[in-house]
């Protein structure tokens, strides 16, 4: 980390998550971490590096490879007054714990008439691009954003990674914090002199523009920002990028205000677009901004195939910048 006198530090997304975990562990003794290899091994993606040495095995709890078991145990611990923060090594492994997330964590408060809550956090990275192939390259956040009772956030910057994780840990309901494999090494500025908690349910304008609104979350925001630069430089199109940050609740006010200004919208996600986050956002834009739109809402996601291994095929499947650029030009009629 690089520090300046003002408290603004440049750090990676991974370091920002670690900072949030450390700050919350120090602030609230009921917070503890659970997950596979998060202790002595320092975390599969090193997010928890150093925490085991500082907080010990009771606060940094290593688990067997047993996602249904320890996610369920976290639900129970949360019901009994603790604030567990579970790491699922990658989002692909959460499928074996779906029953606990969807049928249990999400239902606890409502099904029991508000008499017991479930302040649980599940952190897990989505994403593709490292030739990890079909079973390890997926983005399922839309599945969870589908479910009443859950909240889902997906930060795209180090500052939001720290701020949203903090808010998730302090939230009284189950929150999934969707991280991203490509973003872990991304750098950004974080103001460590302030608490920095970011309100869940509020989108951000990542780049201002007047001709096109690009709506994205997580690593797709980074892709959109690059494409926006190219649209400006190569085509004279000024694109605004809305970083959703939170998928449930979803800040349609910010999206609709942007589309009302630009009259054109392109929605981008890392995962499959069918029945995905972009489907939801595009539908809502059509409803909220019907009179504002000069063109149908565009969408870009991953190719609708299981992720292949060969680099040429993987590249072809990813929602890479060329694809987004083509879609953006189409929406702009350029």
């Amino acid at each position, binding site marked *: 980390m690089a520090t300046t006198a003002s408290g603004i530090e440049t750090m990676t997304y991974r370091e920002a998550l670690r900072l949030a975990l450390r700050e919350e562990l120090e602030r609230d003794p009921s917070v503890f971490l659970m997950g596979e290899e998060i202790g002595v091994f320092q975390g599969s993606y090193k997010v928890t590096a150093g925490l085991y040495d500082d907080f010990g095995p009771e606060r940094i709890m290593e688990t067997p490879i*047993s996602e249904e078991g320890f996610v369920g145990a976290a639900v129970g611990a949360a019901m009994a007054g603790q604030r567990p923060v579970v790491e699922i090594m990658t989002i692909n492994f959460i499928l074996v714990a779906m029953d606990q997330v969807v049928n249990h964590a999400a239902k606890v408060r409502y099904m029991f*008439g508000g008499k017991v*809550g479930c302040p649980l956090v599940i952190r897990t990275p989505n994403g593709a691009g490292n030739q990890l192939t079909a079973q390890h390259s997926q983005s399922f956040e839309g599945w969870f954003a589908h479910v009443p009772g859950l909240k889902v956030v997906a930060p795209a910057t180090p500052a939001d990674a720290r701020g949203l994780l903090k808010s998730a840990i302090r939230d009284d*309901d189950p929150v999934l914090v969707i991280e991203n494999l490509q973003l872990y090494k991304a750098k950004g500025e974080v103001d460590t002199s302030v608490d920095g908690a970011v309100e869940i349910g509020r989108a951000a304008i990542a780049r201002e523009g007047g001709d096109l609104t690009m709506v994205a979350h997580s690593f797709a925001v980074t892709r959109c920002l690059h494409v926006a630069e190219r649209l400006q430089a190569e085509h004279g199109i000024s694109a605004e990028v809305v970083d959703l940050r939170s998928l449930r*609740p979803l800040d349609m006010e910010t999206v609709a205000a942007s589309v009302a200004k630009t009259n054109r919208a392109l929605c981008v996600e890392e995962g499959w677009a069918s029945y995905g986050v972009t489907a939801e956002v595009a539908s809502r834009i059509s409803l909220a901004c019907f009179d504002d739109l000069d063109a149908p809402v565009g969408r870009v996601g991953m190719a609708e195939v299981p992720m292949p291994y060969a680099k040429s095929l993987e590249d072809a499947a990813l929602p890479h910048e060329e694809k987004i650029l083509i879609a953006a030009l189409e929406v702009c009629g350029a």
Partner: protein
Amino acid sequence: MTVIRLFEQESERQYKRARIGGYCHLAIGQEAATVGVVAAMGPEDLLLSSYRSHGFALAKGVPATTVMAELFGRQDGCAAGRGGSMHLLDPEHNYFGGWGIVAGQLPIAAGMALAAVKQGKELAVVCELGDGAVNMGAWHESLNLAAVWRLPVLFTVFNNGYGMGTRVDQSNAEPEIFKRAAAFRMPGERVDGQDVEATHQAAAALLERARKERQPAVLEVMTYRLRGHSVADAGTAYRTKEEVAEWAEKRDPIALVTERLIAAGATAEELDAIQRDAQREVDEAVAFAEASPMPDPSTLADFVYGDPETGRQFSRMAPGSPAGEAAVLAQLEQAA
């Protein structure tokens, strides 16, 4: 036990009158197993159960009034009309649910025990499950976690012989379920669940070890349901009438405990008083449930989320947010 028996018989009647809806799993025949285990619990101990939950709620002290109101889907039900028969709960009485997915409550019970350990509390968690739950992955994962983390959980397997309509020996490679505890190096015992005292004794000893030594264990409680899997099941397609009759005549837990009470010198007046008091409790429960209003549709989205900021967060998401649904409901009401 008598309250549970009469309450369940009343539930069956009310279901037939369509005042209770949804699934409804009765515990008739399993009263001694239920009461034997719950009576062995200390005041701080926590209870989770499967969806055959009426008896557990009553045994744990949840008022019959709020239980019946929940079955009726009324505002004053113990889950505010959101849970129904399968999802009874009352934290005030340390009863943490009635859970509807087979074996889903097991890891949650382990987690509640983990929280108790973290909080320095000397208590045990009782997690009831049916025999059908022991072939789920959650069974294996939860017992393993309880063992490796030394969690004070007593997994009480209510073995009533059938997982829905499938016999235990047809679905289990090891039908002596208690023996599976050995795979996790924890005590496993089997007890006659029609014998309330034996069940109490077995549960009490294992609970004591759970509290003092953080020793998890499996207690297989052998019992029998005299009704079908749920009220929708006559309970005769997969077992003979003779088998059911034999259990009803020779192994009815209420009859067995009554015999014991008589042998111990209980008078007819005392036994009548038990019956009369239980009936009054059930009658009062029905009256309470009938008087309680249906939950107001304007409260539909209450309890989806708990924190006070959430309404504001979701208001930006409309339509489709809890805030949006409230607006739609208001319009419907206006139209009506």
